[in-house]
């Protein structure tokens, strides 16, 4: 889809205008969207301290105009867009986590106060994770042994790391 304003660049920003509860969507390129946004804000300032205060004191006052920036970030696995995720608060499939991963940090920190799983590592699905963690642990041991100049032991550890990196399971035994 081409930008509706310049008809040159691909439309990557979808602007939703809500005016008196009527919704219309414009498909624009990033550059045009920025210009349009500035223009709109300049022409009829929808946001000011005054508006904010009235807004706070009278929640009934209808929003004259609200600009909602949507972008085209979309999960290929299930078709859910990031904007839809924001609206319904649910992921559509496990792929969504990968596609939206950059934006999940602040969200997860707000919900859980953390953005790192520290619990169970399942045997099969977590196999790679388990492997990587045990290699990390062995590397740490190797470094320590080398610094203490215990080279014989270090060689054993080094071989273990190698076999883990090559064959995965083999070294576990």
């Amino acid at each position: 889809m081409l930008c509706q304003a310049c008809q040159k660049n691909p439309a990557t920003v979808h602007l939703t205008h809500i005016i008196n509860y009527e919704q219309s969507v414009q498909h624009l390129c990033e550059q045009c969207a920025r210009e349009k946004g500035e223009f709109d804000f300049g022409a009829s300032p929808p946001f000011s301290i005054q508006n904010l205060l009235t807004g706070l004191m009278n929640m009934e006052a209808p929003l004259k105009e609200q600009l909602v920036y949507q972008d085209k970030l979309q999960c290929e696995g299930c078709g859910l867009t990031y904007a839809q995720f924001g609206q319904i608060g649910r992921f559509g499939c496990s792929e969504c986590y990968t596609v939206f991963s950059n934006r999940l940090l602040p969200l997860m920190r707000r919900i859980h106060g953390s953005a790192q799983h520290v619990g169970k590592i399942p045997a099969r699905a977590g196999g790679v994770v388990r492997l990587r963690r045990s290699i990390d642990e062995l590397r740490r041991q190797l470094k320590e042994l080398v610094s203490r100049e215990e080279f014989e032991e270090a060689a054993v550890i080094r071989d273990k790391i190698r076999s883990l990196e090559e064959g995965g399971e083999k070294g576990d035994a």
Partner: protein
Amino acid sequence: MPNDDKGMRCGSSKWMEGKGPDGEIVLSSRVRLARNIMGMPFPYLASDSQTETINKQVEQVSINLADELGDIKFLRMNNVSPLHRQVLVEKHLISPLLVKEPHNSAVILRNDQAVSVMVNEEDHLRIQCLLPGLQLEEAFAEANRWDDLFEKELDYAYDEQWGFLTVCPTNVGTGLRASVMVHLPALTLTKQINRVLSAIAQVGLAVRGLYGEGSEIIGNLVQISNQVTLGQSENEIIRNLYGVTRQIVEQESSARQVLLNEGRDRLSDRVNRAFGVLTHARLMSSQEALQLLSDVRLGIDSGLIGDVSGNVLKELMVLLRPACLQMEAGRELDGMERDRERACLIRKSLGPK
């Protein structure tokens, strides 16, 4: 009423029987694990054929694992009558959501009803273990064992950073929700309940009354559960909830002691009046019943009412709910008939043997 419900009884679940540790105050402990299958759209977005694929896959797994899972049944919701579904909800074995959208959803139910697995609920799988008393570690151990078994056969959606991937971001990580149901009549009577509940909320746990909304907690029953699922290990979550629950048990116990020491006659009068109403009333709403049963249970726990099993509150609070009443009666009942049947059931359970 459909034929398959004729002659069926509500029966009892493991959590409703026995008392369990700290069972005077902690009625039950529940643990559930949310799990999803990799590369499959989550149930609310999945097509009929996709949810059916999941259903078949899980049914096959339950057959493969028959030896380890014990005596189980795989129930497809489309094959379960609406009344029977509602009974399962009232016994806390499945969620209302599973009933609302029964298409292609299912439940695996262990014979003792201590473990159940919902299929195609919010997440593809929800493994639940429900035990009497304060048995969070035991409930987690059993749910975790089932989880390990299922993981052998199913490709779980799991990520190094986010842990177990769930539909809702509030469940991601461990996918673990642990909860206890506690009976707190003395904290209510001594007007300490709000202070205690807000203290619980401040340590990051969720608190809610069992039925109904608003400020009044019906039957003095409160459910406490963890909110955080990411950034804490399963053991931390379980231990934290266990610790807080133990503190609540102690506060409720000492409040009961205060009531007994300082107002024994008043307390005895209150609980025995409740007993009198329950053993003689001819019509009883569920709300009134829960309130009076709370008093009676407090009377039994405090030794002010004898000759009645302490489990009566737990059993009756399920058996006197609408679907269970109708299942027992063997026919549909309107509101007035339910109130009559409820009063009758209570008289039978509490009355002279």
